């Protein structure tokens, strides 16, 4: 009689504590807190127009961060995304100003992104140089190259670009639509395809993945190509919003993209995270903070401090969560203590 009570007593173990629930949805909670704080501080913040504005402004970061998430899932990193955007935009600008049709220029920009990814992938998988070093190098080489072809001058692009950025399809701004498509595709790939699940396996343990017959090299190479492609796509969105290529184009995007992914719960050690809702939420969160600070007329020098404070809190919550979950999931040996004492 007592025995059966032992084995049928899972409630003690599966009872979801409020703390765990909060910790497990840390990015959502943080997001809500930021929304509430800014809504209270500024009446203009929580308006439909402003929220749409935030979505539009965060769109290029969200797309670049989507690619970055793929890389982070394999425990790699891609620091060259901003450079890929810059080189792509420079090539695109040159072509357009040289009289080439815009679609061709955009395709060339995507091509540059893919090429960046391919070069990174080549060095990382074939020459086995660690991703941090490879992409740091391509970051500087790329920016230097782009500065040379733009002669460090800003290039103003035709109005068609700005029109693309402000266009709407069925009432939805094109940049937001682009994010939705990219994110949906990415999330489907990650959660519903063998490729996606193998990425998670690879991030969890490369050696085991190799032994299990996962094509580690191929997968690793592909995430950098995906990241390069997403960087170029994010670059196109940014171009359509700025209408010009300046020498600072794409700067700090590697930081924003990594921050967005991490804010969304992606682990830098690989194997954990997702694009939706994670990374998207992270990207929007960063934009919320910046937007809110603008509305509050805060000192611009405070922006990076406050943004990094938010990121720090997210990482802190993440580590607290891991510890707490580990403690709670520890195996119980005796199941009688709760009910009736000794058997």
């Amino acid at each position, binding site marked *: 009689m007592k025995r059966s009570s032992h084995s049928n007593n899972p409630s003690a173990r599966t009872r979801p504590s409020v703390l765990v629930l909060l910790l497990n949805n840390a990015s959502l909670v943080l997001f809500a807190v930021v929304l509430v704080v800014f809504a209270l501080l500024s009446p203009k913040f929580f308006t439909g127009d402003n929220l749409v504005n935030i979505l539009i402004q965060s769109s290029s970061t969200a797309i670049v961060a989507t690619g970055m998430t793929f890389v982070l899932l394999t425990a790699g990193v891609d620091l060259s995304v901003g450079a890929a955007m810059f080189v792509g935009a420079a090539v695109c600008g040159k072509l357009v100003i040289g009289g080439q049709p815009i679609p061709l220029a955009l395709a060339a920009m995507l091509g540059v992104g893919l090429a960046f990814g391919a070069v990174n992938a080549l060095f990382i998988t074939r020459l086995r140089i660690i991703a941090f070093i490879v992409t740091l190098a391509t970051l500087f080489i790329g920016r230097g190259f782009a500065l040379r072809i733009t002669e460090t001058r800003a290039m103003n692009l035709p109005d068609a670009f700005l029109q693309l950025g402000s266009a709407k399809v069925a009432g939805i701004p094109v940049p937001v639509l682009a994010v939705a498509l990219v994110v949906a595709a990415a999330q489907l790939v990650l959660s519903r395809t*063998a490729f996606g699940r193998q990425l998670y396996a690879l991030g969890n343990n490369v050696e085991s993945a190799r032994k299990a*017959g996962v094509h580690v090299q191929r997968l690793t190479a592909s995430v950098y190509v995906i990241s390069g492609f997403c960087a170029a796509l994010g670059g196109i969105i940014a171009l359509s919003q700025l209408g010009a290529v300046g020498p600072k184009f794409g700067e700090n995007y590697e930081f924003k993209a990594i921050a967005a992914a991490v804010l969304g719960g992606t682990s830098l050690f690989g194997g954990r995270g997702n694009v939706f809702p994670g990374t998207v939420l992270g990207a929007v969160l960063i934009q919320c903070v910046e937007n809110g600070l603008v509305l509050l007329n805060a000192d611009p020098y405070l922006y990076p401090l406050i943004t990094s404070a938010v990121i720090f809190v997210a990482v802190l919550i993440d580590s607290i969560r891991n510890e707490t979950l580990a403690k709670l999931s520890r195996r119980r040996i005796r199941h009688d203590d709760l009910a009736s004492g000794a058997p």
Partner: protein
Amino acid sequence: METTNHEQRTTNDALLSFRAIEKSFFGVRVLKSVSLRVRRGSVLGLVGENGAGKSTLMNILGGNLRPDAGELLLNEARFEPRHPTDAARAGIAFVHQELNLFSNLTIAENIFLTSFPRALPPFIARRQLRDRAAELLNEVGLNLSPDTLVERLPAGERQLVEIAKALSLAPKLIILDEPTTSLSARETEHLFALMQRLRERGVAMIYISHILGDVLRLCDDIVVLRDGAMVGNGVRAEFTSERMISLMVGRELSQLYPKRRERGDSVPLSPQRGEGWGEGWERHETQAANESAGLNHPAPVTPPHEPFLGSSRRDEAHASQPEKDQSLVTSAATVQGFEARNFVSGNSLPVERRGGPEALLELRHVSQPHIVRDISFALHRGEVLGISGLMGAGRSELARIIFGLDAHAGGEILLNGKALPRSGPRARIQHGLAFLTEDRRHEGLCLEASIADNLALVALRRHARTPLKFLSTGTWREAIRTMRAAVKLSPNARDEQAVKTLSGGNQQKVVIGKWLVAEPRVFILDEPTRGIDVGAKFEIYQLIHDLADRGAGVLVISSEMEELIGICDRILVMAQGEIRDELRSVEFDRERILRAALLDGARTVTSARTP
């Protein structure tokens, strides 16, 4: 399994043949013209010490390595696997000793990672995935949802998932490399029954294990490797455990468990410090003198002080015949209380003279809700105390509590008579407690670091004497040399060599050596010989006796009952987080231990682990 038809043994029977396989690493021949055959629907036992070439051979079969010479024949056709998928495609599945599962994926995803069912490519057919996984889980006897994340499973269940994964390939040949190391007795039985079913279905298997009894029980044919060469090959009937061992070791191994070491040949440790070791050292000499004076076998007179009981038992070597010790059973045989002061290990005589055995570590009514309840016992100077029990009985958890890694709610833990703080290992280490975890690879060692760095880890600070705390290389090297000698680390291993390249036995020695620097008086060893081959096990046992002989108290947790019976002075049996029985060496009895471990526990312990 007795119905094997050995007479059917013909060449055509061979599913897989290795022919004159050669392999060298850096000029060292690790496989010397190995030829062997696996018959259809049979189980081939592959035994040999670690480093004998079993893994290399299996890596060649699995496509991870290519042979330098020789060939593989699968179904009479040449088979040249170049990638793990080649082997899988040919119907060869591996169940590795180390688990290769991905904790962030579900059971189903782990099983089908490289062969996801797809209804509408590239998308995974999730229902089909779940159904097929459920079927396989059912087959291996794991009653869990296929959507359970693997990180929530204990090691034993993960091993079963590995086996389900192997079965998913519908293999013709399964290689099982030490599959039972993390399984409970029940799970092991379940696995053996499953192997039997597979065999009847015509699936061939290669079974690699250090548990020779299992090999004899399960296998139709047995192959013994030593130093990369095949030294034994035949049907099961030709083998006994003793024969396998002598073939593996290349010498007659007269015993599985060592006698208590002859005094005087041990290496003095840390001569500059350590009163504990110094005393121990003196005691050896006293003892040696006593022995030479013929005091070694006193007549069993006064029961409470039976000084040489332990060593007498060890002189009988195997200890697998407790009857031999019956002559020493005395009237005080039934000591059930935890204050069993009359029981100390072999060389307790000098201690006795100083007035009673010394409890180095004492637990008084230690409890922690859901984990352990009312644990009381004392570990004495010079004693090897074993803790037996099934998987999930709370042994490792108790060890973690003693070492302060986990908290305990009630009771107290005394080290050298002083109560310890509730938690935190730091104070315990300072007071002379050492803990070797069951997972030495991940928790006990820095695998990528060198032997020297690992040995020096605990004591680095001691070798930084200059004002700027630079390491003093001279004393450091000296300390490393002392440690290596103390634990008898393989002389072939260079100080600079990464620990991960060592065999399991040598890795364990590095862990012990690392702790010796801190001069602990109490050792807690959790599964000290897991994954270690026969020869090296013996050396670890010797090391354990050595520690006890020098006056340390050693607490050994092990799932191998034979091992505890072979090396311990006293055994506690745990079940469901409680101590259920206590046996002195004269009472050692497999049945009694098993009964205590299983009593009221078998079903509950295993079934209560709801994920």
